[in-house]
C-alpha cells in the first residue's frame, strides 16, 4: 500500500473505520442534507430524529441514517481545508499508482480514487459521493500527497484571459439549441 507512509491519511482512515458501523449505505438517491461547513454543522443533518431525517424515514425515534449523519469533521479527522482553497471546478484525476492502490483504500478515499478515473471537478465529486465539499477538498489533498491523485487547479486568471474568453464564446456559440441550431446559423440578421 503505497499510501501507508502518509501519517495524516492513516489517522483519518482509522477514525473513519471506527465510525462506519454506525452509517448505513446511501442506497436511496435522496440528496444529503449536510450543507453546513465543518465549523457550523447543520442541525438538519445531525443524527437523531430531527426534522432533517425526512417524512418517510420510518417510525419517529428510529431515523434512517445516511452517510452524512457522520459529521464532516470526523471524516477529515478534524482537519479543515487550507486557506488557499481549491476552486470548486478544480479537476481531479486518479494516477496509475492510485488505481494500483485502490484495493487497499477504504471508504471515502476508495470512492474518490475510483470515481476519478475520468477527470472530475471537486464539485462533481462532492455531489456524486454525497460528501461535503470541504471534506472532498481535505481528502483529495491527502490522496494527492500520497500520489493517488493529481489535482489540476483552474487557470487563476482565466476570467481576464482574452484567449480563454474567446474560446468559451466560440464553444458556446456552437452549442445547438433544442432545434439543433447553433447561435451562428440561428441569426438571420
Amino acid at each position, binding site marked *: 500500500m503505497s499510501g501507508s507512509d502518509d501519517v495524516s491519511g492513516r489517522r483519518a482512515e482509522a477514525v473513519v473505520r471506527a465510525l462506519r458501523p454506525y452509517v448505513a449505505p446511501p442506497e436511496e438517491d435522496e440528496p444529503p442534507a449536510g*450543507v453546513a461547513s465543518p465549523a457550523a454543522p447543520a442541525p438538519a443533518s445531525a443524527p437523531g430524529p430531527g426534522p432533517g431525517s425526512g417524512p418517510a424515514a420510518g417510525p419517529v425515534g428510529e431515523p434512517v441514517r445516511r452517510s452524512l449523519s457522520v459529521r464532516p469533521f470526523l471524516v477529515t479527522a478534524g482537519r479543515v481545508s487550507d486557506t488557499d482553497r481549491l476552486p*470548486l471546478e478544480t479537476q481531479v484525476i486518479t494516477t496509475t499508482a492510485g488505481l494500483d492502490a485502490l484495493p487497499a483504500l477504504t471508504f471515502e478515499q476508495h470512492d474518490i480514487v475510483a470515481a476519478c478515473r475520468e477527470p472530475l471537478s471537486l464539485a462533481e465529486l462532492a455531489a456524486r459521493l454525497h460528501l461535503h465539499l470541504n471534506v472532498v477538498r481535505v481528502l483529495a489533498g491527502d490522496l494527492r500527497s500520497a500520489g493517488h491523485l493529481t489535482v489540476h487547479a483552474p487557470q487563476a486568471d482565466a476570467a481576464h484571459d482574452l484567449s480563454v474568453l474567446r474560446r468559451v464564446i466560440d464553444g458556446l*456559440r456552437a452549442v445547438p439549441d433544442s432545434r439543433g441550431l447553433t447561435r451562428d446559423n440561428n441569426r438571420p440578421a
Partner: protein
Amino acid sequence: MTTTALPNPSASGAGRPPLPVKMVIAGGFGVGKTTTVASISEIEPLTTEAAITEVAAGVDDLTHTPHKTTTTVAMDFGVITLDPTLKLYLFGTPGQDRFGFMWDDLVAGALGGLVIVDTRRLDDCFAAVDYFENKGLPFAVGINVFDGNLDHDLDEVRWALDIPDSVPLVMFDARERGSVRDALLVVLELALQRAEEE
C-alpha cells in the same frame, strides 16, 4: 498546498485534464436557476435538493410559486464540454440567504454571472445584483419569461432594478437551451469587452 499539477504526467491515468471555467447563475428563490442549468448542461445537473417541506417549510416564500415543492439548499451545477480541452461549469447559487457563505466559493474565478429575475418579485434579485457589483464580476440580468408573461417593458424593469446601462438586461426562457445559451453569451461578451479594456 500549491495549486499546480504534480510534475509527473506519465504517472497519471488520464493525462492532462480539460481547462475548467465557470459561470454563476444567481437570483432569488424559485426564479428558475436550476431549470436554467438543466436546460444547457450535458449532464443531469448535480443538485443537492431536499424537499422544502423537510428543511424550509414556513421559511421560504411560496406565495408566488405555489407549485414549487423543492428548493435548492446547496449548490447545483451543470457542465458543458465546449471542446476536449475546455469545460464550462455552471453553478447555481443557493436559493436562500442563509447559504450566502457559499457565494464566495462559487464566484471566485468565475468568468461572469447571470442574475435571473422574476418580474413579480423583483426585489428577490437585489442581493445577487449587489453582490456581483461589489465583486466586480461581469454580469447580466436575465428576465425569465417561461410563462410567456412579461408584465413590464424592459426599461421599466431596468428602472426598478436600478441597474446602470452597462449591465445588459435580457429576456430569456430558462427551459430553452438556445435561449439560455444566448443569455450566457451576453455575459461572456461583456466579460470579453471588459477584459479587452483592461
